[in-house]
């Protein structure tokens, strides 16, 4: 491996060394503030190295498994900054939960490494490796350190269902490999096969199984059954991680696979994706209406949000609209990351003192505007952004999705997006109305790091909504390089 190749792997090497250092530090000195500081510092260092490599980038393959290009680095930056904010928010939450919490941050860094691997992967082996690094760390994070029964149940459910979906996906990969004789995305694109008999069957069944596995991880309808339970049971910072970093990494690899292999030419796959997106938006929004728990509501709303993202994903099937669609999905994902981390961040801060079950009942948020105006302000901004109200990043994201849909003429899906947003407005605004009600004061101790992280996320969200030009320039350059 040459020096330039090593250099372009700098973000991964940095993160790996931080993980090793942290492991040694935990072995000798258990100090939560130190562990959290080291993880946050390490993530910042990784972020700097991502931009460093991005600055004078020589895009290309590093071993057949990984590719370093602007696209991979953009997703790495997104994943690492997401983990950074989650680390800060999780600190106050973890301090209140007693001894032996240090390894949580180690697991968080490992899962982040898995996410970065996914963003870089261009081969099924690295894809599986990244996916499982992410998944296995997450099982442990959900139940860590298993104080509540709910988190244990959530971890068990997630482990069984996630392992089944991984197995289904692996079997699909094996079938595709049996026909095409390669596991590398670029070689799969160039290998030809006879479109008859067994080969056709294997390819069809294999791609269907891979798609089903990925839909499960992205919690798209009809593979969404696990989502509300796991979101409700998992500790709020882990839920934030599950909803953002895990989904972002998987979406990155899905989009890369589809653009490299050009799976868009298969009508069957596109019509399958069409139904998945349509059902996700409708089912997610309608079920979110009926929830009284904020975490379950956010779970269904995240199903719907990923449904919107899939509209942009499908829009990339039209040759003319491909660049705009990739741009749209990247921007939407950035907005989704910020908003979701912010929303679960507020739930985290609210639940700092609760031991068994997080404070996620809607009634617990009554009168928040009068007791904790700043926190309520942050939460309102997140809800407005999820609803797609102007001056927030969510608005620009949704605008982008609709623009991509119009360019690729997906009229039915666009109608569904509009209907879904209409329904969404109702339950997002209901949260804000609940917070303005008068009620008895219930004291919340906001941790300083969590508070500052929330302020930063909210500020970024508004900046992105008011002045999105620099980020738009960035994502459009990335999309142009990918197409």
């Amino acid at each position, binding site marked *: 491996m040459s020096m330039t190749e090593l250099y372009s792997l700098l973000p991964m090497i940095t993160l790996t060394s931080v993980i090793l250092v942290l492991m040694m530090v935990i072995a000798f000195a258990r100090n939560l503030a130190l562990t959290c500081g080291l993880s946050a510092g390490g993530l910042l260092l990784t972020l700097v190295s991502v931009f460093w490599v991005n600055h004078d980038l020589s895009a290309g393959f590093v071993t057949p498994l990984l590719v370093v290009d602007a696209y991979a680095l953009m997703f790495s930056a997104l994943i690492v900054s997401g983990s950074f904010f989650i680390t800060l928010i999780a600190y106050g939450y973890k301090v209140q939960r007693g001894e032996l919490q240090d390894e949580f941050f180690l697991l968080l860094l490992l899962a982040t490494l898995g996410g970065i691997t996914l963003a870089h992967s261009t081969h*099924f*082996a690295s894809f*599986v*490796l990244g996916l*499982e690094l992410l*998944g*296995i760390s997450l*099982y*442990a994070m959900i*139940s860590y350190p*298993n104080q509540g*029964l*709910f988190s*244990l*149940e*959530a*971890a*068990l*459910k997630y*482990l*069984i269902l996630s*392992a*089944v979906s*991984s*197995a289904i996906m*692996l*079997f699909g*990969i*094996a*079938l595709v*490999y*049996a026909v095409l*004789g*390669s*596991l590398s995305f670029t070689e799969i694109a160039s290998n030809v096969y006879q479109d008859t008999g*067994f080969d056709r069957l*294997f390819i069809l069944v294999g791609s269907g199984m891979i798609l089903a596995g990925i839909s499960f991880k992205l919690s798209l309808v009809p593979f969404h*059954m696990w989502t*509300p*339970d796991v979101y*409700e*049971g998992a500790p709020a910072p882990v839920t934030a991680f599950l909803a953002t970093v895990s989904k972002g990494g998987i979406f990155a690899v899905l989009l890369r696979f589809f653009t490299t292999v050009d799976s868009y030419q298969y009508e069957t796959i596109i019509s399958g994706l069409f139904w998945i997106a349509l059902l996700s938006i409708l089912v997610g929004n309608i079920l979110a209406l009926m929830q009284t728990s904020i975490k379950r509501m956010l779970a269904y709303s995240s199903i719907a949000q990923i449904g919107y993202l899939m509209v942009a994903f499908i829009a990339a099937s039209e040759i003319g609209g491909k660049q705009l669609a990739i741009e749209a999905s990247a921007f939407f994902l950035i907005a989704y990351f910020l908003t979701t981390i912010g929303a679960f961040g507020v739930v985290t801060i609210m639940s700092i003192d609760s031991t068994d079950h997080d404070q996620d009942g809607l009634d617990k948020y009554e009168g928040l505007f009068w007791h904790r105006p700043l926190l309520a302000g942050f939460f309102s901004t997140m809800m407005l952004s999820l609803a797609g109200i102007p001056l927030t990043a969510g608005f620009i994201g949704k605008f982008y999705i609709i623009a991509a849909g119009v360019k690729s003429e997906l009229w039915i899906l666009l109608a569904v997006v509009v209907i879904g947003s209409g329904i969404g407005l109702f339950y997002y605004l209901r949260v804000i109305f609940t917070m303005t009600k008068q009620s008895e004061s219930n004291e919340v101790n906001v941790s300083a790091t969590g508070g500052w992280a929330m302020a930063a996320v909210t500020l970024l969200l508004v900046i992105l909504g008011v002045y999105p030009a620099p980020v738009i320039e960035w994502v459009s350059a990335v999309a142009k390089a990918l197409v």
Partner: protein
Amino acid sequence: MTEALTIPMEHGLLLASLLFLIGLLGVMVRRNIIVILMSLEIMLNACCMAFIFAGAHWGQTDGQIMFMLILSIAAAEVAVGLGLLLQVFRRFGSLDIDRASRMRG
């Protein structure tokens, strides 16, 4: 290996699919967590088998490398699974997955 001993890839994949279905049925039907974890292992091993047959068909080592990868992943998954299982038994006094299910859905 002589020509007569070669097994066609389709037969191998069929066997792997059967094993996979047995595992999947086990996960869906059985309620004991240990048996569910065992069924998961069967599913993952069926994937390994499919990879080995496909790799042998193409004369590549990729299939065997994927086998090793899946093997280690399955080991890690089951290690975490057994850890959770111990906790479940300690808290609920039972390995029945329905007893451990308190949330809706």
